[in-house]
């Protein structure tokens, strides 16, 4: 591959990266619009609920002092992302993405989720693989899955719906507000994941730009050397004994 082909290749890569980068920025701005919209709806419904319930019933003093988080995030390694030199430069966080989960508490479920066992178990418990298993094993599996479901159910039930902090019969606008904030939260997680992608793409762009500049400077140096060499040889042809000339004479 000669120099001009290499340069063209770098420029094409740079163009692709810039386009992808700008696409991500555009999606990022769109995503912010969606978040703002969801939160606006949430605040509006909350204000409506305050109006319906009376301002003193919807304050921080009504929060449950023993609340447990029902909505959490897990940081999972992004298997699809290629581990390249950018990741190493920026630390491991660029290879990760956040996932919003709901209704899972501490303990075995979380460990299973991290080990990736839940997906496999679900597949095996409910999928086609049960066809060839003996009846007793099937029964065991069913019992186990029932136990797991019951276990999850009791755990889920133990988390009190935050709506009930403010009363049993709450206005529908408070439910709407809750839904809007849940949706907004999901969008926030998406934007954090998008931010990571933008960061990685930005680093990729910077690296390619540096590579191009280095290549161009070395290319110019080679060209200048070649021009100098050509000029010297031409001079030698015109004045073959120029070095021997006695300038003082």
């Amino acid at each position, binding site marked *: 591959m000669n120099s001009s082909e290499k340069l063209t290749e770098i420029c094409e890569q740079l163009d692709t990266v810039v386009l992808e980068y700008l696409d991500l920025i555009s999606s990022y701005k769109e995503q912010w619009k969606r978040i703002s919209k969801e939160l606006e709806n*949430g605040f509006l419904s909350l204000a409506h609920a305050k109006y319906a319930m009376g301002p003193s019933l919807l304050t921080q003093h009504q929060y449950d002092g023993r609340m447990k988080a029902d909505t959490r995030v897990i940081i999972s390694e992004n298997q699809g992302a290629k581990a390249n030199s950018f990741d190493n430069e920026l630390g491991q966080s660029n290879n990760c993405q956040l996932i919003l989960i709901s209704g899972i508490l501490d303990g075995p479920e979380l460990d299973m989720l991290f080990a990736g066992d839940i997906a496999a178990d679900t597949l095996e418990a409910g999928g086609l693989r049960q066809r060839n298993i003996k009846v007793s094993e099937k029964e065991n599996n069913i019992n186990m899955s029932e136990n797991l479901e019951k276990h999850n159910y009791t755990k889920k039930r133990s988390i009190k719906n935050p709506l009930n902090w403010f009363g049993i019969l709450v206005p529908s606008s408070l439910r709407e507000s809750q839904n809007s904030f849940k949706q907004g939260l999901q969008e926030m997680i998406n934007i954090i994941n998008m931010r990571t992608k933008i960061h990685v793409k930005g680093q990729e762009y910077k690296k390619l730009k540096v590579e191009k500049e280095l290549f161009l400077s070395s290319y110019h140096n080679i060209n200048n050397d070649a021009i100098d060499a050509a000029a010297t040889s031409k001079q030698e042809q015109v004045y073959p004994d120029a070095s021997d000339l006695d300038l003082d004479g």
Partner: protein
Amino acid sequence: MAIQQKDRNFLAVIGDEDSVTGLLLAGIGHVNSQQKKNFLVVDAKTPLSKIEETFLEFTKRKDIAIILINQHLADLIRPLVDDYDQAYPTVLEIPSKDHPYDPEKDSVLKRVQRIFGE
């Protein structure tokens, strides 16, 4: 990596009462066994030192993955927020009822401007 970050499951929030109430309704509120909350309601009487202290506390906690903070409150502790450079917990500035999202203050867009302005 996954093992190191396994315990980072909570979202923390620093915001005005409506923002915190909304996000707690979404289910992120948690009070642990040491009675430590993962949220701070900021009103007109809350001193700046309390916001700074809470922000630093959240950044040091090993069980928090995301810190959500109202953009107008992040402005009050801007040097702290800008100096913070750890991957986790990650900080996201969110709009509030009275202060809509301002792209001018967005760190990502600022970085983009820097990259193309160089």
